[in-house]
């Protein structure tokens, strides 16, 4: 016990002697403007901080842009319309990839809910078109549910021929107006990309 106390004392004494060398006296130089090394260091430090922050901001901006771009892309994919043949409510083969992508996004975002609105051109009977629009909305709804989307994420509605995308009266307009429109009703922000 005693021997250990002595050792500690010796070590402390040695350390004290080492830090206490006699001070050298340099030749007195002509006194230049005193360099404020503390200020320089502070400035350099600040510059590096600023640069780092700028880099971080740029990175954050880029990330935000990328995220916004992804959000916009996901939103666009969720909202992309599908189209129908005259007096038909069958999903066309060329729209399946569109719906598959919607299904993946909906599954990756269980908080996302959408309304599917079925629309018709103005050639059929006005009131029959309300029923046809509902069939069209249900066709997409059924497709998505078959892809594993929860039924609770989808509501359907029909606008018949009441809300044409293109008010013109020709084949091109009619083709545009026979569609399903997809609108997020909840959880449409901060979508997660499907893996």
């Amino acid at each position, binding site marked *: 016990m005693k021997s250990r106390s002595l050792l500690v004392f010796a070590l402390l004494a040695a350390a004290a002697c080492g830090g206490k060398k006699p001070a050298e006296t340099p030749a007195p130089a002509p006194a230049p403007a005193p360099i404020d090394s503390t200020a320089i260091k502070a400035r350099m430090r600040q510059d590096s901080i600023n640069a780092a922050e700028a880099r971080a901001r740029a990175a954050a901006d880029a990330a935000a842009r990328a995220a916004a771009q992804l959000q916009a892309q996901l939103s666009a994919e969720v909202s992309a319309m599908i189209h129908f043949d005259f007096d038909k409510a069958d999903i066309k083969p060329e729209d399946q990839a569109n719906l598959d992508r919607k299904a993946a996004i909906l599954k990756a975002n269980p908080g996302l809910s959408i309304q599917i609105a079925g629309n018709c051109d103005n050639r059929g009977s006005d*009131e*029959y078109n309300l029923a046809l629009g509902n069939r069209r909305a249900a066709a997409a709804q059924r497709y998505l549910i078959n892809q594993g989307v929860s039924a609770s994420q989808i509501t359907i509605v029909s606008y018949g021929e009441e809300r044409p995308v293109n008010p013109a009266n020709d084949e091109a307009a009619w083709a545009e107006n026979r569609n399903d429109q997809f609108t997020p009703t909840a959880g449409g922000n901060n979508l997660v990309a499907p893996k």
Partner: protein
Amino acid sequence: MRAAVALGLLVLAAAPLRAQDPIDRGVRVGITYTAGTRPRLVLLPGAGLDSVRAILQRDLDFSDRFEVLPLESGSAASGSTVNYQLYRTLGAEYGVDVRSDAAGVVVRLHDIGSGTVRQQQPFPLPAQSAPGFRMAVHRVSDEVVRWVTGTPGVAATRLVVLMNKRAYRVDSDGADVTPITPASETVLSPTWSPDGRYVAYTRFLDGAGPIMLHDLATGRAQRVFGTESQLNFTPAFSPDGRSLAFARTDQQGGTDIYAVNVTDQCCLRRLTVGRFADNLSPTYAPDGRRIAFVSTRPGTPQIYAMSSDGTDQELLAPYDYGATGPSNAPEWSPDGASVAFHRDIDRAPQVFILEVGSRRFKQLTSSGRNSDPTWAPDGRHLAFVSDRSGRAQVWIIDTETGRIRQLSLTGEVRLPHWSRRFGAASP
């Protein structure tokens, strides 16, 4: 003397009209009806009452029951006696004499052939500036039609139509176009209650469409029980006004017909179970026991019928599978004998009448697109939408004579529905 000259010219002018009358459609039951002709009627000249005469003259012409001889208004102030001989030379069988009295007018129907007054009656009329004036004059003309034919005319009626997503009412002669719903709302499927007090329609919202019961006297609209959710459309009143049948979408993509007790706002019942077919556009038979409707069960929409409780469903209007175009918008005639609807021929809708007893059709239109027929209360006139003039307008056809006239309205018109007759209590 001047009048006699004017009338003499009329004889020459009127004679060729006979040749233009539609040919033989069979002898009608009636005192003076003969095949292919309408009895000639003249509104006897008199002092004053120009606007009354003008409305009567047009109503009697629009009744399609008479050939109304044109007379310059006020061309001859007749005395107390009627120059029967003069009108006999014109070929007139009836003369209608209108004179003022303290409360309104006294109307006399003269039988020109026998030179006697066949009927006369005083009719109180409101002031010409009062809102009920035109309708009161329409009721006078409907009564004159009844004196001659046994059946009242349909001048004292209105149509409800859609123009630019708004419901309007318009008198049967095209006058007094009045909006019912505000410009801020989109509505569909307007329909009269049998008593003319209400118009029911779909208020078209973003995710739903309730049916509203709009009280025309107060302007207040009340949501119909059972139509809070989903899209509810094509409402139709039962003839007693107690039930409202309508179509309703579901979340599985289907559309089915329901009925609700609209006087007690209760008792929603489902009348069809479509599963893979849609059912819509119900219309009650006048006895209230049958409902005609549209069903897509054959693949295309066609006209079916069922009991008003939903049982006993059957195909009503025959069709050829795969060949007949879609058939829509049925409306049962007030006499129960027919159902009017439209059916696509070469992708353009045309108006048809189905005789319910024989299941035989009559195609009424062929030029342009003609759709959404609706019956006048006489079961003889039909209004429908046609684009034959270049834009969608309401046209009125007399199914007996084939005479047709346009109900001129500004803008595109859709989905007309004709009221029943308005009683004296209506404005």
